[in-house]
């Protein structure tokens, strides 16, 4: 099956690069430069996934506008923000709008393609799950309180869904799998499938993961820091 990827990027060169790279990897692409054009095109020819830049021409929040409108009208399309706006507030805002992922430039096209594939796989798995029932979650963890379905990138804590981003999900899975021995920063960086991930970035993600756990149940202390090394999972 050939997936169609909508690329919304006002820089024609980057847009072309994304398109070339994705086409070489078997994706079909449809490219848009401006907000209205993108909304119109995506409505007429719905893609399987949308790559969105935030700043589109003179519209500094054009990407956010497209995301909100697409999700508002019920299009269940995975959206990846691919932008130079790296502020945390932008990332939080984009993810809260309903985007599946938020990637900051510069990116690796290979890793981008992998992320896209992963997201499509998850999307497909979740769609199948929605069409059938919700009983086939495959837990890959022995921790009875934490359920992780890697295929769907789905995690739950004490039966409650953890609203993790894809990167957070991957980090949690990596830590879980490493167990009490722990996983170092390099491996954690690789698990994010992003380029240039610093320890600080990983620490920020871990903080966010802990916050989300704590919202479901206080006193979550399973993810433990190994100073100077990385993180480990410790059963509560």
């Amino acid at each position: 099956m050939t997936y169609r990827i909508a690329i919304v990027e006002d820089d024609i060169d980057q847009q072309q690069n994304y398109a070339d790279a994705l086409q070489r990897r078997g994706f079909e692409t449809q490219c848009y430069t401006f907000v209205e054009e993108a909304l119109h095109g995506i409505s007429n020819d719905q893609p399987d996934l949308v790559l969105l830049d935030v700043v589109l021409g003179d519209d500094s929040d054009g990407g956010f506008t497209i995301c909100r409108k697409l999700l508002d009208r019920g299009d269940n399309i995975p959206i990846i923000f691919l932008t130079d706006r790296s502020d945390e507030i932008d990332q939080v805002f984009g993810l809260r709008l309903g985007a599946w992922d938020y990637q900051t430039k510069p990116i690796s096209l290979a890793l981008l393609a992998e992320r896209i594939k992963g997201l499509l796989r998850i999307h497909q798995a979740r769609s199948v799950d929605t069409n059938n029932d919700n009983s086939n979650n495959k837990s890959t963890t022995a921790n009875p309180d934490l359920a992780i379905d890697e295929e769907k990138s789905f995690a739950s804590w004490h039966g409650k869904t953890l609203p993790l981003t894809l990167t957070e999900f991957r980090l949690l899975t990596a830590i879980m799998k490493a167990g009490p021995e722990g996983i170092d920063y390099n491996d954690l960086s690789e698990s994010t499938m992003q380029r240039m991930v610093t320890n600080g970035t990983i620490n920020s993600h871990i903080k966010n993961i802990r916050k989300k756990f704590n919202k479901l149940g206080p006193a979550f202390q399973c993810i433990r820091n190994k100073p100077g090394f990385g993180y480990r999972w410790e059963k509560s």
Partner: protein
Amino acid sequence: MPRFGIKTQITLLSLGLLSIPLVGLSYWEDIRKATLDAQVRIQEIEAKAIATTLLATQQNIRELLAADEDSELQKHALSAPSINQPIRMDGLFGDWPVQVNTPPRFNLDHPVWLAVPDVQNETAFSLRLAQSSQHLYVAIDVRDNKVVFRKDSHLRLDYNDHIQLTYHDESGMLRRVILPAEKEGALASYYTDRQWQYGHDIEPANSYRKSNEKIASHKTGVQGYWHKTAEGYTVEFRLPTAQLDTVQPKIHFAIVDVDDNPAYGPQAIVASLPKSLEDKLNPVALHARELQRVIDQLKNTYARLWIYDSRGREWAFAERDPQGNQLPQNEFTPTAFDSQCVKDALQGKIKPLRPMTDNNGKSNRLLVCYPIIEKGETLGVVVIDESTNHILAQEEARISVIASKIGSAIILLLFVLLIYAFTLVRRISRLSEEAGKSIDPHGRIERTTIKASQHFPDEIGDLSRSITTLLEKQHSYMNFLERIPQTLRHEISNPLNKLRTSLENLLDHQPELADDTYIRKIDSGIEQISRITLHLTEAASLESAIQEEQLMKIDLIKFLDGYLSAWGEQLECSQWDKSPALILGDSSRLEQLFDKLLDNAISFCPENGKAQVHVERHSDKVTVNIENDGPVLPTESSVELFSPMVSTRSSGSSIHLGLGLHIAKLISDQHKSKLSGRNREDNSGVIFSIEFELI
């Protein structure tokens, strides 16, 4: 340089206001002089007017003031100074005026009668006279070794010690009054006849009015006191001046000493005139009623007024109420005749201004003397005496009122000035304090609005608004500087992404280029720029991120053990106490902090060098020292060391954006710890210390 605050300055300047009273004081001296000058002129005019009036109205002025023809008698003239207070009739002389304290003394130089001539007799007497406007006061101190009192059985008045008083009454008739020694107490007196033996009723002086009446012998008008003393006796009495001839007043006293058998007659008679003049009476200067009337009209105008004749006899005297005189206390009894002013006037010289000075040399009296001149002959002199105090009293009162008003105004002004100064200083202090607090110790602007004096429409308000504007501009500029990394990152990201994706596509199309040197260099360059943008992002986002983070209780020693062990051989760690050291912290941030410090230390180490870590334990804090050999810091200023985009050392090819220490400082501040950098004492390397407060 000593500090002079605005309060001190304004206080000192305000003291300059005190010069106003000093100026006023010098002005007061001018007023005082002018007032005294004017007063002198007034007194001169007044004296001249009195003299002229006397000449014009007193037909007998020449008769009054002309010199007595009997110059021999004049030698025995008696003086009766004026007194301003009545004298108590008690036989004691303590209340007599000072100038009659040395009264003339009469003894056997003036014998009228001696029972046994050539036998020493000690009978003598001293005589004091004084006059008020109503009475002639007489005090006689008699030395008598044996006082013989009058017996009740004696009708005669001369069988005992007694005093013979002779005078001319108002009509010029000779009157004889005998003052016998009867008893201690009220003085008895009787008109008597030529023989001085019995009481004798007399015709009144103005007999034409009551022709059928006589005055009883004991109604002499003499009021007095007889007092026995150790040496004899004293008599003090007064006689109404109305009974005396004031045109040519004359009076005579004779002391009659009676001892043993009175029938034999007196032992001695001593008189106020020598025997050669026994038919005469002593001239005495009594105030002339006509002249006294003239100056009495003015007695409340000046302290004292006199009219003297050319011989110095006082013919009239008037004095203001003594309470209001304000004349020197030592002049209990006024007299002016001895003054040079009077002497000059009697010589026809008019030198009106004769300021009298007190013991301190300060003028306290104004004495004006004006001669009474008729047909070229100086008959007398009019003297007007006034105290400068009295003259200046009203002026001083006015000046005092003005001075007190000015003084009050100055004090009020000083008070207002001081309050104003304190208000200004307080406003400036608050402005200074607020301005100081608007920038933190690292030079970062914490607030841009200065509230102090913001709404005052004055220069301090302008200053406050200027500082606010300055802070806003500086804050804007700082924001710009702080956003430079983020802006740079934003601006670089797109072209960098374009480069990276283009290169990636190129290599996908032509994999054989992957080994091309230039392609590898391009890839390396892109990688380097990517890292730079990453660091920029990290620094830019850290500050806002840590504000929301909550610190938790962690064991710093345990953290350091785990953390430092991950660095392996790159570090040289000394041993330290492993007991727990609890701090409030965030392990991931501490990790980031120590990453930066250790990265920094290692990057500046010489080849094969190691960074050293020491932990110092104290009772309330833990200090972690990270040392490295190598180049020293050019500055130990925390502002310069930890400012963003400032790299103080060069370390070859490594990327140094100056963000590492800035990030470390931000995290240190988050943990309320103290981060500092210094060179080793021997300049062999650098030590960064971070001091954590224990909880």
